[in-house]
């Protein structure tokens, strides 16, 4: 096959026999105008596209909401051998949609093991999230079997919140708890992996936190942060 490529041209316009070429000129005025016009168009398009994209994504990804504590009852309301459902508001301003059930109980030495160190105020009470760690449906606590059961795809969790069956990838999320003015207060959510290691920036359901999962699903900027 014959080589149909043209021999490379000189970069100087004068060498290329272009009318009106100047000595040492590499870009013709016509080409310069073309590039300038296209460049101006690109700048103009970028000038409205980038702010619009930032507007759509910036707040959503980078705004960190405030830490809120909500009183749910007196310490003696919560037994150690079963859960008491309480309703808290996770997102305000959207009515019932922003509310969620939290299962509360007192700390149970037999189940929860030795008293943990270094966890701010979460030790005496357990506030279990109802968000299934498969895909986020609401689990309910079934007293008779001492299990949390998800209606969507059959996820089952034991009394401690660890997965005992079905598709969930990690134990149920929990909430920070503290005692203030004789009231038990529920704070931000946190996630745990199967060893019950705490992940303060909670992860969405379906995100495995064991092994490589904790690196594949990094913490986000949009979760409330305890000091």
């Amino acid at each position, binding site marked *: 096959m014959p080589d149909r490529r043209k021999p490379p041209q000189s970069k100087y316009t004068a060498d290329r026999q272009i009318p009106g070429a100047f000595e040492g000129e590499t870009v013709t005025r016509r080409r310069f105008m073309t590039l300038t016009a296209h460049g101006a168009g690109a700048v103009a398009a970028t000038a409205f596209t980038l702010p619009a994209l930032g507007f759509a994504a910036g707040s959503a990804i980078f705004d960190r*909401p405030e830490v809120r504590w909500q009183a749910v009852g007196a310490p003696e309301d919560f037994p150690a051998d079963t859960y008491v459902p309480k309703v808290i508001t*996770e*997102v305000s*301003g959207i009515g019932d949609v*922003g509310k969620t059930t939290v299962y509360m109980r007192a700390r149970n030495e037999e189940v929860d093991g030795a008293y943990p160190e270094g966890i701010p105020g979460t030790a005496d009470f357990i506030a279990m999230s109802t968000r299934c760690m498969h*895909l986020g449906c609401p689990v309910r606590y079934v007293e008779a079997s001492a299990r949390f059961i998800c209606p969507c795809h059959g996820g089952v969790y034991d009394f401690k919140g660890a997965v005992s069956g079905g598709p969930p990838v990690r134990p149920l999320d929990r909430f920070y708890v503290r005692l203030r003015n004789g009231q038990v207060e529920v704070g931000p959510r946190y996630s745990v992996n199967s060893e019950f290691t705490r992940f303060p920036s909670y992860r*969405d359901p379906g*995100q495995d936190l064991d092994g490589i999962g904790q690196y594949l699903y990094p913490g*986000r900027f949009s*979760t409330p942060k305890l000091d």
Partner: protein
Amino acid sequence: MKLPKLPAPPLPGVLQPRPPRPGEREKVGPIEQAKEGGIAAVDWVDERTSLSGGLRWAMFRKVPKGTNWFYTLGSATMFAFLSQATTGVFLAMYYDPSATNAYESTRHLTNEVFLGEFVRGMHRWGSTVMVILIFLHMGRTFFFGAYKYPRELNWIIGAVLLILTMAMSFTGYLLPFDQRSYWATIVGVNINGTGPMVGPFLSDFLRGGAEFGATTLSRFYAIHMLLIPGAIAALIGAHLYLVAKLGTTAPPWLKADTSDVVDEDRV
């Protein structure tokens, strides 16, 4: 074979059109006038745009022998989209995309607005029809081998259109804002979040934060009624342009006629 034309039924003399008297001009009836007016208006536009050439190029194409009803699935899909677009625009006149009012406004437009149940039903069931038609159209293209050279790009555009339609189904599902749509969206966004590294941030982008919040619904609404429909309309345009440009394929069971003998009937 050409069939003989039936003779016109005999009319009594009074009803028969009277030919003009000698020296009298032929009368122009209102129908002829309207026709003339219409032609003049179309001519006026065509003289200034030359649209008719493009329309003729796009609509009066040569189609291969053996073209059959399966070739109408693409048009059917397009009309499903047009139906969705039309009903969607009018549903937007009554719908309120706020977390506190969405369900109530949907209930109101369904139960109380005249023809509301019908128009919402068209949109709700039409979405399913559109997805089914897309898959049938895709299956036709696949089994007829119509995705092969030089039509690969049209297959790619079609695949993007399929994905965009799925995104429409996903974002539209939330809008009635009942229990089913709420939990389906929770589940859908969480599935999206399981993508490694970017998944969690993409979920935040979709929800407008770490939790399903005040702006999630309006975000889905904007994506559902502005962003994706625009992209779909533009890509349908490109898809149709390529169909007109490249032509359609003959069904695979038709063999190419390779004989050199000229067939009198087909010349």
